[in-house]
């Protein structure tokens, strides 16, 4: 009886913890198995604790090369998509032009279209153009599908921006460039940052489109896929855990900065 009442009272907390567990369990498994020393080629059964993989993350042929390619791709795709997407978002919110309505809806197409369809059509396009498949074709494809996510994130921010702020800046002796750098950009920054992070994550772990447009280039997700056919090196778990830790650190840093700002309040 008492247990039932206790459960009732803490129902929200219990549900929250269960959901959190559901979300985090795969990450925990990945982390735990990064310290495993498997007997065969597959890292599916717990054997003994070992830090071998952590001391030698590049010990598997091709892994660190593919990781490097993926990081470069993600960095360039983020840069390209963020710059283009931010400009598109500003254009869509601030200016009235002929094809505005059409652009506004077409920009969402890459989000709505099944990835495999887009991948296939991109491959057709690149082959017809006679393009050499590889790093550059992947990059073009990644910028293309990241773009719509950046536009959505930045647009939301720009729409909520008071145009009077820019007028105020112009009124206070800031020229067009200064107004953009000192007022528009800092205020739009959270939206741009959100778009950029989204683009980075999407580009880094994309598999389907990359697989179609890569030619002989191997990215990290493709490497993982490929090795899963033959056996899973522990190093994959190491890289996965490291990525997870980096992401968590980013979030924590953001919380600390935000918390410090809030504490400045009286």
């Amino acid at each position, binding site marked *: 009886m008492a247990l039932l009442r206790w459960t009732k009272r803490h129902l929200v907390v219990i549900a929250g913890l269960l959901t959190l567990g559901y979300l985090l369990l795969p990450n925990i498994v990945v982390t735990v198995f990064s310290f495993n020393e498997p007997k065969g080629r597959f890292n599916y059964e717990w054997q003994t604790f070992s830090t071998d993989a952590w001391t030698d993350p590049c010990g598997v042929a091709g892994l660190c090369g593919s990781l490097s390619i993926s990081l470069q791709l993600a960095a360039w795709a983020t840069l390209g998509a963020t710059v283009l997407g931010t400009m598109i978002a500003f254009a869509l919110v601030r200016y009235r032009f002929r094809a505005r309505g059409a652009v506004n809806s077409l920009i969402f197409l890459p989000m709505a279209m099944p990835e495999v369809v887009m991948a296939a059509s991109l491959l057709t396009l690149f082959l017809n153009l006679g393009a050499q498949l590889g790093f550059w074709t992947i990059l073009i494809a990644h910028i293309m599908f990241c773009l719509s996510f950046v536009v959505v994130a930045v647009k939301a921010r720009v729409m909520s921006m*008071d145009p*009077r702020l820019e*007028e105020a800046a112009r*009124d*206070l002796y800031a020229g067009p460039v200064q107004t953009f750098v*000192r007022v528009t950009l800092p205020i739009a920054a959270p939206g741009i940052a959100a778009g950029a992070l989204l683009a980075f994550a999407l580009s880094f772990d994309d598999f389907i489109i990359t697989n179609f447009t890569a030619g002989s280039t191997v990215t990290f997700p493709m490497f993982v896929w490929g090795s899963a056919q033959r056996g899973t090196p522990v190093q994959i778990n190491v890289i996965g855990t490291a990525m997870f830790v980096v992401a968590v650190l980013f979030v924590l840093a953001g919380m600390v900065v935000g918390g410090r700002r809030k504490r400045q*309040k009286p």
Partner: protein
Amino acid sequence: MTKDHGGDVRLSGISKTYGSFAAVHPLDLTVPEGSFFALLGASGCGKTTTLRMIAGLEEPSSGTVSLGEQDVTRLPPHKRPVNTVFQSYALFPHLDIFENVAFGLRRRGIRSVTKQVDEMLDLVQLGEQARKKPHQLSGGQQQRVAVARALINRPKVLLLDEPLGALDLKLRRQMQLELKRIQTEVGITFVHVTHDQEEAMTMADTVAVMNAGRVEQLGSPTDLYENPRTTFVANFLGTSNLIEAEVDSKSGGAIVLKAGDGKLSLPEARCSAPATTGGRVLVGVRPEKISLTHADDAGDVPVGRNRITGKITATSFIGVSTQYVVDSSVCPEFAVYVQNIDRDPRLVPGADVVLHWSPAHTFGLDAAQSLLAGTAGSAGVETVEEEAAVR
């Protein structure tokens, strides 16, 4: 003593049209240096557009804007020695109060701004708040930051676009006095846009009443209030009783008018309409200028005063005065405000009364305009506060 008149604002024939809609009709206006000038009108009358053309945020369709001797019509806003206090304040949310105020100085490449900013924050009593972000301040404090941010640049002209609109009544009163104090202290030309006639009258030396993209009348608050020249001004500034009358005769600088079965006298100098015998004019009188006498004492009313008989339909006691509504043959809803000095207990709804006032307090308007222009009921007029009329 020489004055360079660098703070004079001269608008010559400026207008603004959007497609076929004329927001501002060609208008000429001179705001003398160091004055507190108000542009008063209902929303959509073109007052904010006029202000924005002075700031450079809006390009005039025709005409020129000059500051002193300099024609600034083609200058972008950041090159004009003019600053604006925006209606929504438009404080930069990502900068703290200090940096908001320092913004203009920094953009002009001034290195050491600390002393000036501190002084300016002291002037608006916000020295303690320098390191806070705008959203951490109250509405009144944000408003003062907006003023400080503009004033620190020592502009030739400070433009205020409904700066008190977002504040509650008490705070608004306080800020009106505050702004007036600051203006006297710094001596900069202020151009203030407002739809609140009371605000315009308390703060400004000169008021331009705008209606539908035109300046209806320009003058000092007392001049506008005592001598309105259009029904819009008569109704928009305070309350007026307007009676349609016919010109009967003219004698010795006075016009004698026939209204209903009675006669009214109007000094010729106070009639803004051409008064030809037999023609019609609108006779106006402010509610607080009228005395109310019970019909039984009608004999006590001094001769030579304008008088009208009627019946009280409603009274309301508002402390400083009592407001009566009187039904008379010439005007169904005659408003009368009587100071609460000696209250006559017989003046209750239903009582027959004589309304009388000095002919010198009568004004005459052109009859060819709407009686209701500028009243609370007519389109576009938001608030007509009655209190200001009781002066």
